[in-house]
């Protein structure tokens, strides 16, 4: 066989493999969307779940998912940013830094159910936070920190050293150079990383089952006092999220329309995660354009 022929065959095989992956993805997404989208309505998105009758919604679960996501990012973003900046800009290249990097890599490959059990023992039991939003947010932070730190570190590492030199040559300190030049220049990819991690958090179930809990008590959406247990903002109330709800219905749901609710909720979850992904690309591109040209 000559080189040209081999090249043709290899190209064909690669096309086939790529097409196979795309087809699986489209089939999966298509199946979930076709099954679920007909069930999505304003009523379904806003009303509370019903345990024994048909016609329940996912309103509280949806709110819980976003609230937990918000809290988890609120806690993990500053820590990840600090850790990422330290690792890329300040840390000397020695064994200790290597150890920190290895630890982060191990943490990022931890199965989320292990994170959930750790969260249960540590936050729920040891710190007596109970099944609560706060326990869930901390568990999600543990889950999210290593990945976000890594993506922020990579974003900073992609900024050329000549930008740092430009800052130093103007008499700026390392801190000024990092915060005012390097981080802003890396902002598009940092934001992309944050939004992508938001998608992962949003779809996470295993880390939350034993931390944020599996029940979604009724909420009083007129009460915004975070210290009141019936307020949607209360961080100490148990909060079943959308992903946990889907797991729950499929394992022990006894409502007559369990299948439909599960399909609808799955479709909403997938759509939300897809939106996060598109948002990440769009925001990153837009910010990059904004920074590099008029």
């Amino acid at each position, binding site marked *: 066989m000559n080189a040209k022929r081999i090249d043709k065959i290899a190209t064909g095989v690669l096309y086939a493999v790529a097409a196979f992956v795309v087809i699986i993805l489209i089939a999966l997404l298509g199946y979930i969307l076709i099954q679920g989208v007909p069930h999505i309505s304003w009523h379904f998105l806003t009303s509370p779940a019903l345990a024994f009758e048909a016609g329940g919604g996912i309103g509280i679960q949806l709110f819980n998912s976003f609230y937990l996501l918000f809290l988890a990012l609120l806690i993990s973003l500053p820590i990840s940013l600090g850790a990422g900046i330290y690792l890329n800009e300040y840390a000397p290249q020695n064994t200790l830094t290597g150890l920190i990097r290895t630890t982060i890599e191990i943490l990022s490959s931890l199965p989320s159910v292990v994170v959930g059990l750790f969260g249960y023992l540590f936050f729920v039991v040891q710190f007596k936070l109970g099944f609560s939003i706060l326990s869930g947010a901390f568990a999600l932070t543990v889950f999210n920190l290593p990945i976000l730190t890594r993506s922020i570190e990579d974003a900073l590492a992609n900024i*050329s050293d*000549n*930008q740092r*030199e*430009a800052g*130093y*040559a*103007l*008499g*700026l*300190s390392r801190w*000024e150079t990092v915060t*005012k*030049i390097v981080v*802003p*220049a890396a902002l598009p990819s940092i934001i992309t990383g944050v939004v992508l991690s938001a998608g992962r958090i949003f779809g996470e179930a295993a880390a939350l089952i034993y931390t944020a809990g599996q029940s979604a008590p009724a909420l009083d959406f007129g009460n915004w006092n975070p210290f009141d247990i019936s307020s949607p903002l209360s961080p100490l109330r148990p909060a079943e999220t959308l992903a946990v709800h889907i797991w729950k219905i499929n394992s022990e749901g006894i409502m007559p329309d369990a299948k439909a609710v599960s399909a609808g909720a799955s479709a909403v979850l997938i759509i939300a995660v897809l939106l996060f992904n598109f948002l990440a690309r769009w925001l990153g591109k837009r910010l990059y354009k904004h*920074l*590099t*040209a*008029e």
Partner: protein
Amino acid sequence: MADNSMMTDQRNIMKFDPKDHEIALSTEDLHVYYGKSEALSEGDLQFERYKITALIGPSGSGKSTYLRSLNRMNDRIANVTGKIMYRGLDINSNDIDVYEMRRHIGMVFQRPNPFAKSIYENIAFALRQRGVNNKQELDEIVEQSLRQAAMWDQVKDDLNKSALALSGGQQQRLCIARAIAIKPDILLLDEPASALDPVSTSQIEDTLLELKQNYTIIIVTHNMQQASRISDYTAFFNLGKVLEYSETGDIFTNPQVDLTNDYISGNFG
């Protein structure tokens, strides 16, 4: 040899004006080590005020290493021993506030490195960090710096556009404008035109000749013609040593060292 006699004249005139011999910067017993290998062993030069001094030599001769040591850009990657004297101070000492020192000794790099900010912000940013917040004052400095870098007329209507949208030559001139906006004494340039086309190069050379009136300029260049066109003094580096240092006219017409002659006539390097 009409040129040569003119050089001699100039030298004589300089001798009669003590001001012209003011030393802006000098190094004493400077050594630079990367790890264990010594990148610079003999490089003690004195730089005259308001003159352009060119550092020439083959790749790896230590000229860029030397230049980057002058405002301590090598601090984190190399070990620099010896003295760098500036206004009676040894700025290579640990007690020196390097950030403050670099505001007196600015630098322009080989590759244009504007910030991912607007043209205006590229210049105003460092000033604001040092407490210049008056809008009018900032506007004035931005305009003045861009004029000095000979690019005001081209960009005055686009000050809010991203600097990354400029051409390479314009980016490099913006970097020069940015460096002089903080009003340093001395400007170090590390092959500032090597990544540019001939037209941009000659524009940058014109700019440097203008700037010479107010700044002491030290420039590393690979380009012999450039060194002879714009510099007053030339130092020839080879293998981490300064082999010859004198007036540019002398170096190019009557080099004392054979190696210098070989290099400027293009026999190696």
